[in-house]
C-alpha cells in the first residue's frame, strides 16, 4: 500500500470528446481518505465525465488520475478498487436482490457461505434485510437505490462514486436518503465522491464541495466557505440566492455600490478597482421607514444605508422573500421573517462582514485583430468599422489589441442585423442590469451588460458602434 495521504489525485486532467468538445479542462483535485466530496455544477459542466474518468469508463485525453498513489489513468474499471452507484441504479433485472448484491463477490469466486454472510451484512447496512429474494423490479425507487448502494459497497471499495443517485427520488425521500448516506459514510469509513447538480444536497452532505462550470473547477471548499466566500459570480449565483452587484473597491476596507460607500472586511484589491460584490438576501437588515422617520437635514448620520420601496413580497414558509427597489434604482432581493407590504418604504442595512467582495473575471471584452484600410479592423474573422482614423496611429496590416466595454455591445433581435451571430448562454442579474454571456457560432465569447431582457438560448446578432471599439498598439 502506498503511504500517499490522498486516496485520489486528479492531476491536470483534460477530456476531449470525439466531436471536439472539451468536457474537462485542466482539472486538478485531491481527495483525502474518508472524505465526503461533492462535485457540483449545472448539467453539462463535466462533473459526470470527471466521475466516469475516476471510475474508468472514460479515459482522460491528458493528465493523470492516481488512486492511492498509483497511476490508474488507463486501467479498466474492473481493475480499480472503486465502485459506482449509477444514476438510474442499473440493477440487473434478471437477478433478484440477493444475486444483484452478490454479483461482485461471485465474480471473485468467494466462498458461498462468505458470500451469504457479506450480502446479509451489506443489506443490513442499507436497511434492506428482508428483501433478499425480491425481484428488483418490484422495489420502489428508494429501495432500488439502497440495493444499488449495497451492491457497490460489498466489494469493499476504497472509494464509492455516486452519480446523482437521488435525482430520481421525490423530495421527501431524497431528504431521508441524504441523512442515511451521511450515516453510511460514517459507518463505512470509506471515501465518497458524489456528483450532483443540487446545491442544497451538496451543502447538506459534503465535507468539501467542488464547484464546476464548463469543464473547469471554479472553487473547492467546505460548504460554509463556498456559501459565505464564493470566489466568483458563478459560484455565488449557483449556490443559494444572492444579490450580485457591480462595485468599485475605493480603497482597502471601503467598497462603493448602489451609489453608496460601504465599509467591508476586504482589502488588497488596490484603489478604484472594479469588483463584484455578493450579498445574501438573508444578510440584509430591514425596517420600515415610516415607523422611525430619520431626522431630516444635517442631523446625526443614520446607520441605515439604503432606502427603497417593496415591489414584491412572497411568503416562503419560514420567511418572506421581498424585492426592494432602492431610490437609486437597484433591485435587491431581501429575506426577512417579517412581512413588509408591497409599496411600503423601507430602509436597509448591510454589515461589513456580510459583504463578499470578488475579483471580476474580466473588465471588458478583449480581442486580437488586424488593422484594415478605410478605418476598419478585423477581429473574429469579421471587418468592423471604427470611428478613429486608423491611419494616424497604425499601418495597414498591423496587429492590434481591441477592447470593448460590456455595456457598449449592441444585441439585435434579428440575427441578420448583427456583424456576428450568437446565442445567449448565461444571464446574471446585477440589480439594475443583466450581465450576459453570448457565445458566437464560432465559439467566441462576448460579455454584455444590458438593461434589456433576454432569455437563455436566445439567438442574437452582435453589433458594436464604431466609437466604442478601442484600439491599442500591441506591446512587444
Amino acid at each position, binding site marked *: 500500500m502506498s503511504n500517499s495521504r490522498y486516496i485520489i489525485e486528479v492531476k491536470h486532467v483534460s477530456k476531449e470528446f470525439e466531436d471536439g468538445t472539451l468536457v474537462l479542462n485542466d482539472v486538478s483535485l485531491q481527495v483525502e481518505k474518508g472524505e465526503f466530496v461533492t462535485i457540483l455544477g449545472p448539467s453539462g459542466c463535466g462533473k459526470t465525465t470527471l466521475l466516469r474518468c475516476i471510475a474508468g469508463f472514460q479515459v482522460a485525453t491528458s493528465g493523470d488520475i492516481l488512486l492511492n498513489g498509483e497511476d490508474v489513468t488507463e486501467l479498466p*474499471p474492473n481493475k480499480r478498487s472503486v*465502485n459506482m452507484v449509477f444514476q438510474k441504479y442499473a440493477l440487473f433485472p434478471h437477478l433478484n436482490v440477493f444475486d444483484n448484491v452478490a454479483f461482485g463477490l461471485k465474480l471473485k469466486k468467494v466462498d458461498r457461505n462468505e458470500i451469504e454472510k457479506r450480502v446479509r451484512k451489506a443489506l443490513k447496512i442499507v436497511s434492506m434485510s428482508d428483501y433478499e429474494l425480491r425481484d428488483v423490479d418490484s422495489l420502489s425507487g428508494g429501495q432500488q437505490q439502497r440495493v444499488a448502494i449495497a451492491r457497490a459497497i460489498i466489494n469493499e471499495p476504497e472509494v464509492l462514486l455516486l452519480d446523482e443517485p437521488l435525482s430520481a427520488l421525490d423530495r421527501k425521500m431524497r431528504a431521508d436518503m441524504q441523512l442515511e448516506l451521511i450515516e453510511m459514510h460514517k459507518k463505512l469509513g470509506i471515501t465518497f465522491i458524489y456528483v450532483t447538480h443540487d446545491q442544497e444536497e451538496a451543502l447538506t452532505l459534503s465535507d468539501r464541495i467542488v464547484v464546476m462550470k464548463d469543464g473547469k473547477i471554479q472553487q473547492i471548499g467546505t460548504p460554509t466557505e463556498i456559501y459565505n466566500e464564493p470566489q466568483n459570480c458563478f459560484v455565488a449565483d449557483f449556490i443559494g440566492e444572492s444579490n450580485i452587484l457591480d462595485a468599485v473597491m475605493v480603497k482597502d476596507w471601503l467598497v462603493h455600490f448602489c451609489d453608496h460607500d460601504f465599509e467591508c472586511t476586504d482589502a488588497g484589491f488596490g484603489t478604484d478597482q472594479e469588483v463584484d460584490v455578493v450579498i445574501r438576501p438573508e444578510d440584509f437588515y430591514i425596517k420600515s421607514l415610516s415607523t422611525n422617520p430619520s431626522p431630516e437635514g444635517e442631523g446625526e448620520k443614520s446607520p441605515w444605508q439604503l432606502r427603497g420601496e417593496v415591489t414584491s413580497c412572497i411568503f416562503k414558509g419560514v420567511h418572506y422573500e421581498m424585492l426592494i427597489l432602492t431610490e437609486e434604482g437597484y433591485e435587491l432581493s431581501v429575506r426577512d421573517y417579517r412581512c413588509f407590504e408591497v409599496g411600503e418604504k423601507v430602509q436597509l442595512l448591510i454589515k461589513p462582514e456580510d459583504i463578499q467582495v470578488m475579483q471580476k473575471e474580466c473588465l471588458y471584452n478583449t480581442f486580437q485583430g488586424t488593422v484594415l484600410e478605410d478605418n476598419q479592423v478585423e477581429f473574429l474573422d469579421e471587418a468592423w468599422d471604427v470611428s478613429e482614423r486608423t491611419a494616424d496611429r497604425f499601418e495597414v496590416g498591423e496587429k492590434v489589441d481591441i477592447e470593448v466595454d460590456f455595456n457598449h455591445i449592441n444585441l439585435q433581435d434579428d440575427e441578420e442585423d448583427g456583424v456576428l451571430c450568437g446565442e445567449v448562454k448565461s444571464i446574471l442579474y446585477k440589480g439594475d442590469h443583466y450581465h450576459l454571456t453570448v457565445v458566437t457560432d464560432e465559439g467566441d465569447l462576448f460579455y454584455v451588460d444590458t438593461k434589456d431582457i433576454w432569455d437563455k438560448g436566445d439567438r442574437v446578432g452582435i453589433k458594436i458602434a464604431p466609437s466604442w471599439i478601442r484600439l491599442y498598439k500591441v506591446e512587444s
Partner: protein
Amino acid sequence: MELFWKNKDLDKRRFWAVPYIEVLVFLVVLPMIMIAFYAFTNGAGHFTFYNFVQFFTQSDAINTLIYSFGIALITTIVCLVVGYPAAYFMATRSFRIPAVMIILFILPMWVNFLLRTIATAELFGLVGLPLDENALIFGMCYDFLPFMIYPILTSLSKIDTALLEASQDLGATRLQTFFKVILPLSKPGIQSGVIMVFMPTVSTFAISELLTHNKIKLFGSIIQESINSGVMLNYGAALSLILLVFINLTMLLGKNADKESSLH
C-alpha cells in the same frame, strides 16, 4: 363523472373488436374444427380412428415426423449460431452500420420466398453443388435467418448500457459481462427467435420440394400430398392435427424448462 364517461367509451369500443372476432372465427377457429372433423371421419363422413391408427402403425410417417423435427432443430440451431452474433454486432456498433445491415437483410425479404428458394436451387446448380439435405438446410436457414435476428436484435438493443458498465464496475471482464448480463437479458429475444424459426420450418414443404426436387420428404410434404391427392384428405387432416399437437408439446416443454431454470 369522468369514470362514467370512460366506461361508456369502453362499451363503444367493444364494437371495434367485431371484425377481429370474425376473422378469428372464420380463419382460425372454424378451420381447426374442420381439421378435427376430417381427422376423425372417413371419406363417407363416418366417425373413425382409422386415420390415426394408420399413422401410428406406419413407421414411414412417424420417421418423417421425427426427421422433420430433426431438420427444424438443426435449422433453428444454425440460425441461432449465425443470427446471434449478427444481432449482437448490429446492436453494439455505431448507428450507421446496423442501418446498412438491416437493409441488406430486408432486401431479400422483399422477394417472395418461393422465388428466393428457386433462385437458391439455381445457384446450387450453377456452382455444381448437389441438391441434397445440405441444400435443404441451407435454404431453410437462408429463409428463416431474419426471423431469428430481429427478435434478438430487439432484446439486445433494449439492454441499458449502464448495466454493462455496472457489471464491469463490479469486476467483470467483457466475457463475464456477456455471459452474466447480456446473454440472460437477451433470452426473451432468443426464445421468440427460436419459436419463429422452429414453428414454420417443422411444417414447411415448399422448400424441400424445390431444393431437393422432392427427393427429401418432410412431414409437411406428406400432409400436402395427402390433401392434394383428394382421396386421402382425412388422413392429411389427421397428420395436421398430430403435427399441431407435437408442436404445442415442444413449446410447452420449452416453456416449462425455462420456468424451472429461472427458479434456480
